[in-house]
């Protein structure tokens, strides 16, 4: 297995530069770069450095606790985990068809989540690079700087995020880590006051989201040389799509295209994801490397998330977002866009789709219905898949006769993008860093590429590593708290 710039020969002769922590992303990651005496880049790696062990400690818990537990994987997209787990557990409680009220309340919750997460990511985290430049002054390159230089943009970003969070609060009970969704349905619907409260701002959100699409499109068009080329690499793309091929974040079946846009598989029931996908492990990251099994590890990796979704689907079911999608597709002149920064463009189109969908849903009387839960014949195993803000999210559980979980497997969005992000940073290193004296601004180029994927490194840290040394942890008074013993697999 060889990927360009993944592993240097004679690494001990090279100089190491680390970006640690990767900032303005969620979660814990670092990048290491190995250079020779002429500043030539020999190796670049994005490492995920934390583990939390969720898959293991969910085992032995009653299945109904799972949707509330697993959202603690991630505070940015808790709703995605909450709902992916609920969808898997719907199958386990035999709820093959939810009530219209339950399905629509969950959809509303999820589109609120997409809206708030995309707003947070674009405005709070990424916009400083795009508005000020990648090598602009460090102290200003953040949301505080944006608030000072572009108060209107910052304010709309804050309010778009707020609206998404309010949709979540009303459907889930709490903005972060709510409890609204349960196996087989939801535990509450909307009151008329809730509905009116959200509806009064919904149109404003559609128009601000549209402005955001125009902003990023303008940035792209002002500097096509940068936006088309920066961190660009060819890859397969995967997402779920609706039965008619439309974009749908809540439910659908798996579709993948190759780098030329040709469909490789379509409408595959995700209950069978395990026959389709495998995961590789590399010694230098706790995050696994998924791939399409039939194509193998070297050729079977893919990207997920906004840029994959917007191009993988045939259309977007709301008019304003669909028109914007058509423009993005036309920009590619018949070929898929693979430019890393086009992720932002696609993301803002998705935010517009989310705002339009929320507005339409709020006109649906079913949201205020009182038929909330169904159940049927219990099953032992279920898979739930959803399109989280950052891409396809897979939850898979088995439950024993005693209703306790016996197996959990999670493939989170950021994990699907692991190889894609590593490839993007290597492309950036080759083009912008190779042979140069590294400066803070040049190193920020690497982070700009990572940020485009909006990785949630927090979600991605549910596994753990072996320990090469022994260290001890002492408290403030020097008492021994913990000891790390050497446990290396297979040889001790």
């Amino acid at each position: 297995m060889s990927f360009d710039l993944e592993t240097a020969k004679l690494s001990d002769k090279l100089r190491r530069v680390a970006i640690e922590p990767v900032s303005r992303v969620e979660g814990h990651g670092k990048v290491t770069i190995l250079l020779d005496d002429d500043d030539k880049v020999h190796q670049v790696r994005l490492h995920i450095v934390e583990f939390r062990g969720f898959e293991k400690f969910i085992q032995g818990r009653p299945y109904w606790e799972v949707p509330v537990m697993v959202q603690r994987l991630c505070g940015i997209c808790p709703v995605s985990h909450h709902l992916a787990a609920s969808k898997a557990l719907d199958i386990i409680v035999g709820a093959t068809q939810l009530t219209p009220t339950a399905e629509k309340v969950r959809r509303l919750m999820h589109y609120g989540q997409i809206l708030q997460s995309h707003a947070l990511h674009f405005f709070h985290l990424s916009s400083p690079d795009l508005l000020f430049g990648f090598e602009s002054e460090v102290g200003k390159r953040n949301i505080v700087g944006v608030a000072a230089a572009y108060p209107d943009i910052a304010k709309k970003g804050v309010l778009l995020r707020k609206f998404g969070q309010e949709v979540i609060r009303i459907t889930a009970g709490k903005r972060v880590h709510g409890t609204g969704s349960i196996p087989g349905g939801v535990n509450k619907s909307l009151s008329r006051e809730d509905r009116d409260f959200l509806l009064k701002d919904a149109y404003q959100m559609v128009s601000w989201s549209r402005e955001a699409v125009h902003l990023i499109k303008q940035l792209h068009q002002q500097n096509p040389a940068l936006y088309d080329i920066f961190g660009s690499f060819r890859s397969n793309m995967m997402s779920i799509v609706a039965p008619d091929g439309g974009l749908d974040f809540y439910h659908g079946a798996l579709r993948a295209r190759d780098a030329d846009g040709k469909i490789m598989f379509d409408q595959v029931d995700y209950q069978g994801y395990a026959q389709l996908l495998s995961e590789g492990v590399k010694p230098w990251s706790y995050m696994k490397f998924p791939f399409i099994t039939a194509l193998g590890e070297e050729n079977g990796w893919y990207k997920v998330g906004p840029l994959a979704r917007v191009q993988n689907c045939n259309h977007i079911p709301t008019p304003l977002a669909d028109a914007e999608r058509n423009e993005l597709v036309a920009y590619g002149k018949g070929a898929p866009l693979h430019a890393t920064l086009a992720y932002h463009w696609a993301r803002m189109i998705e935010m517009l789709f989310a705002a339009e969908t929320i507005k339409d849903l709020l006109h649906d009387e079913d949201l205020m219905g009182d038929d909330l839960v169904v159940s049927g014949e219990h099953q032992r195993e279920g898979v739930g898949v959803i399109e989280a803000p950052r891409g396809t999210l897979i939850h898979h559980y088995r439950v024993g006769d005693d209703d306790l979980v016996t197996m959990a497997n999670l493939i989170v969005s950021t994990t699907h993008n692991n190889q894609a992000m590593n490839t993007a940073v290597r492309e950036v290193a080759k083009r912008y860093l190779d042979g140069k004296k590294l400066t803070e601004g040049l190193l920020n180029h690497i982070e700009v590429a990572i940020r485009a994927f909006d990785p949630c490194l927090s979600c991605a840290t549910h596994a753990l590593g072996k320990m090469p040394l022994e260290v001890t942890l002492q408290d403030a008074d020097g008492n021994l708290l913990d000891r790390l013993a050497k446990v290396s697999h297979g040889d001790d």
Partner: protein
Amino acid sequence: MNKKIKVATTSLAGCFGCHMSFLDIDERLLELLELIEFDRSPLTDIKICGPCDVGIIEGGVCNAENVHVLREFRKNCKILVAIGACAINGGLPAQRNQLDLRDILEEVYHTSVGLAQGSDIPNDPELPLPLNKVHPIHEVVKIDYFLPGCPPPADAIWKFLTDLIAGRTPKLGHGLLHYD
């Protein structure tokens, strides 16, 4: 104008939900930015904590790197705040404390379903050493304030910070003290 209060924030073994709740003060964030200045934080590109007035820590301690960052914060921050269940008592990640580290490793990287051939436990020196247990941060350094909740509500964070900035002893009144 008075000098702005310097605030640093970080997430150790947490989910960023406490940071999200901080941002849930919504437009008050823009108001707050008139009074404070961020040092190291996931919102800025400052990678190492400098001298600060207030340090806010989300998440417990699960690996050697967390210990290092926590000590860096204690050294530099006059007031150190544990925010949320994870920082205060380990929270959900501490569920792994009853399990054997090695069993988890084996399962996730060696025996679990769908792994490519030859998969094994990651062991690169770039990866920080995981601790056998997840620890609350007050076991490692002295903490000045504890803000409970998973996450604490945005209004509690707002009240706490505005009290502190105004020089009052922070007090969470009725309705702001949550443990869920």
